[in-house]
């Protein structure tokens, strides 16, 4: 966010930001009227269109090295609402749009509605909710107003929860209810915090708030409530209890979108809160505490993942661990002198993006394995690598990215975080990062070695897996590998609109 001007203004291409939000809204409204038979076709047009918009916004911000902004209804804040896309926003927008589009390709096999003559339940719900998630994520990335962000969180919650229990089994209903309770608790805490901040500063606009904010009891209470609420939504340890059953029980395409995309929304909001709304207010102790929660998530999530018997649960616990890395940016990027190290923030965002691509690929691969074997017991995976080579290759590449081997995006992210631990002399986080990588490699290799092994009895495949589903999974996995190459150029976009990093000499 630009810090200087009190009056914000609509920039030349700001209108694109409105488009990024209302395209999915148009899709939702159209799907309600035209019915579920058309929902997939509508999503098939609007999701790629949304990706196009995101790409144009990305290129504009990258080339001009300026944030894009739009004043809704020509009402200046504090009365009105602004939309603002800085470097973090545009990078996340493009990444999430790509992931959502590929998940859409994958989901055609399970939720295809072109051939049926009447509206059916699961496709209608899935496509509408997928569009809603894409709109809500865009809102979270570009909204410059704390209450609009609350509306976005609500959109995201109500779109994500039904995806968990899409197949209607009793245990998934239970998982969905638990998710709903955690998510609503998070929403209400965020809302209370927003109300407190408005009461203290008389504005909801992020730029205005960042100029007025100072340390006082109400602000501290608000920040704590909002952060804890968002922790619950992001499933940061120890508020992760809802995540494994919810993400493991959902249909594969839904698991992919929940694990890859949805948890990043509330994470992004935490970053906005501490880096843009209240820059410099995070105390050293607070940052270390958040980092400690992240570190516990990495260790516990990975250890529990190692002990899982079912593939989808293993991947879900791995999400709990990978979320932990995201929170290491708080001790590493915010330091006591209120300087902000660009590298740790960049590393954290890259971790969010590479986890999104890798985890979506892995959940898709697990879904294909489940579809063809009829189960996902890890000990019974023998021979599957021979039957579904492309799928298991995608799984392996995703795993390599999670471990953090070069040249993957995961490598670059963890390397930037490690570099920040050295630069800020906080060696203890480096130990956690490296230990996490080792544990991750252990469970990825367990799965791969089982899959490469010989089957105990001749393998019978329940269903043939469509080629394009395998291609979608592999595409995402390849993306996660190639993400490491962004170091050669586009990575600078993350710094657009940020105050000049004082430690730029690190590069």
């Amino acid at each position, binding site marked *: 966010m630009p810090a200087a001007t009190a009056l914000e203004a609509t920039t030349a291409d700001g209108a694109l930001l409105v488009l990024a939000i209302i395209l999915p809204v148009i899709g939702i409204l159209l799907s309600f009227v035209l019915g579920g038979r058309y929902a997939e076709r509508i999503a098939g047009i609007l999701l790629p269109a949304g990706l196009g918009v995101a790409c144009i916004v990305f290129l504009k911000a990258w080339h001009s090295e300026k944030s894009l902004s739009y004043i809704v*209804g020509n009402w200046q804040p504090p009365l009105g609402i602004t939309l603002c896309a800085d470097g973090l926003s545009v990078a996340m927008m493009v990444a999430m749009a790509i992931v959502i589009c590929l998940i859409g390709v994958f989901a055609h096999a399970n939720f295809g509605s072109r051939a049926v003559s009447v509206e059916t339940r699961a496709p209608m719900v899935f496509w509408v909710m997928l569009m809603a998630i894409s709109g809500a994520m865009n809102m979270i990335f570009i909204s410059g107003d704390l209450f609009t962000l609350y509306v976005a969180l609500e959109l995201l919650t109500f779109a994500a929860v039904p995806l968990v229990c899409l197949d209607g089994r009793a245990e998934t209903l239970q998982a969905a209810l638990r998710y709903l309770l955690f998510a609503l608790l998070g929403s209400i805490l965020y809302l209370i915090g927003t109300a407190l901040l408005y009461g203290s500063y008389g504005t909801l606009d992020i730029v205005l708030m960042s100029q007025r904010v100072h340390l006082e009891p*109400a602000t*501290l209470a608000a920040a704590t409530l909002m952060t804890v609420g968002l922790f619950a939504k992001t499933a940061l340890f120890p508020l992760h209890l809802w995540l494994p059953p919810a993400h493991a029980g959902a249909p594969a395409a839904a698991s992919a979108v929940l694990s890859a995309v949805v948890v990043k929304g509330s994470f992004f909001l935490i970053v906005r809160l501490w880096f843009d709304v209240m820059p410099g207010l995070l105390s050293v102790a607070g940052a270390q505490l958040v980092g400690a929660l992240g570190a516990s998530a990495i260790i516990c999530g990975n250890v529990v993942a190692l002990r899982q018997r079912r593939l989808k649960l293993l991947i879900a616990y791995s999400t709990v661990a990978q979320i932990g890395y995201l929170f290491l940016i708080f001790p590493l990027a915010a330091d006591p002198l209120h300087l902000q190290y660009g590298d740790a923030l960049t590393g954290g965002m890259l971790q969010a993006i590479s986890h999104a691509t890798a985890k979506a690929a892995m959940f898709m691969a697990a879904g294909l394995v489940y579809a063809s074997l009829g189960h996902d017991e890890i000990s019974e995976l023998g021979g599957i690598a021979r039957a579904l080579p492309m799928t298991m290759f995608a799984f392996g590449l995703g795993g390599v990215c999670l471990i953090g081997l070069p040249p993957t995006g995961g490598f670059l992210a963890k390397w930037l975080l490690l570099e920040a631990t050295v630069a800020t002399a906080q060696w203890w986080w480096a130990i956690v990062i490296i230990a996490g990588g080792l544990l991750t490699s252990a469970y990825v290799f367990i799965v791969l070695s089982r899959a490469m092994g010989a089957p105990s009895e001749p393998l019978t495949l329940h269903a043939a897996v469509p080629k394009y589903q395998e291609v979608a999974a592999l595409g995402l996995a390849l993306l996660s590998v190639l993400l490491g190459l962004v170091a050669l150029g586009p990575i600078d976009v993350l710094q657009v609109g940020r105050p000049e990093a004082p430690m730029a000499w690190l590069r």
Partner: protein
Amino acid sequence: MSIASVFDVALVALILAIGASTILVRKAFAAVVMFVVYGLLLSIAWVRLHAVDVALTEAAIGGGMTGLLLLGAVARSRSVNVGGPWIGRPARLATCALCALVVAGLAIAMLHPPEVIPTLAPTVMESLPQSGLGNPVAGVLFVFRALDTLLEKVVLLLALLGVWSLAPDRAWGGMPGLHVYARSDPTLIFLAQLLPPVGIVFGIYMCWVGAKDPGGAFQGGTVLAAMWLLVIVAGLQKAPAIGRLWLRGLLVAGPVLFLAIGLAGWVFADAFLAYPAGYAKPLIVAVEAALTLSIAVALGMLAAGPPERAQQQ
């Protein structure tokens, strides 16, 4: 102490007592009844604070609609006869501790207010005449923060689709079963014939007056939804099948009109969700009217629950 402050202190004590008993009572049904009473008392408190719009919303949504949804949930869980999961002492203590922390945080914030409490109210009143509206709350909802209002309506649609998604596959497109609420009896039928004409007029009035005085689409829509539900529960009308085109049309009518006017603002007023000078009030009243209908249908269908019976062709 004046009579007003005695009344206020008594009201606060009553709200706290009802709030505590909502948590302490053992039976779910009793807790819901307490919750509804709590909502009504809160709305009186809002009136005392001169926030009539908030009071109306609290009474309509907080007490009325939420209470109805909770009653439905109690009845449903009774009809399938599930024993609630036993919550152990550690979980209860942890809940207590967390609630106490939140209360402590709020108390700290409330007891140290800024010396000058910042407010946007004067700025809102200054800018309000441009829109021709008289009610500052409507101004905030439909002029300054129209984007939030528009997207909140989409949230409502998603919530409804989420409820529908709980239906079994074969019942998709069919009718919700409302039998959980009540068996129809003569008194109910009499009420369902007597109240709706009054209620409908009142709901429309609330929507219409919202541009000038307290009221508006959400409150009006809730009253209309309540009347509709009364007629359905009494068995005078069937709940519509969720696949009906007219139903889907009504559900999206409000958001579609709102979005269309917002997009038109791009052409005629130079910004998304801006109104052309001089046309703001009629446009907003039109949006409010359409939203009232959409909200009424959405809330009614939310309370009616997921479809249970397949539609007879």
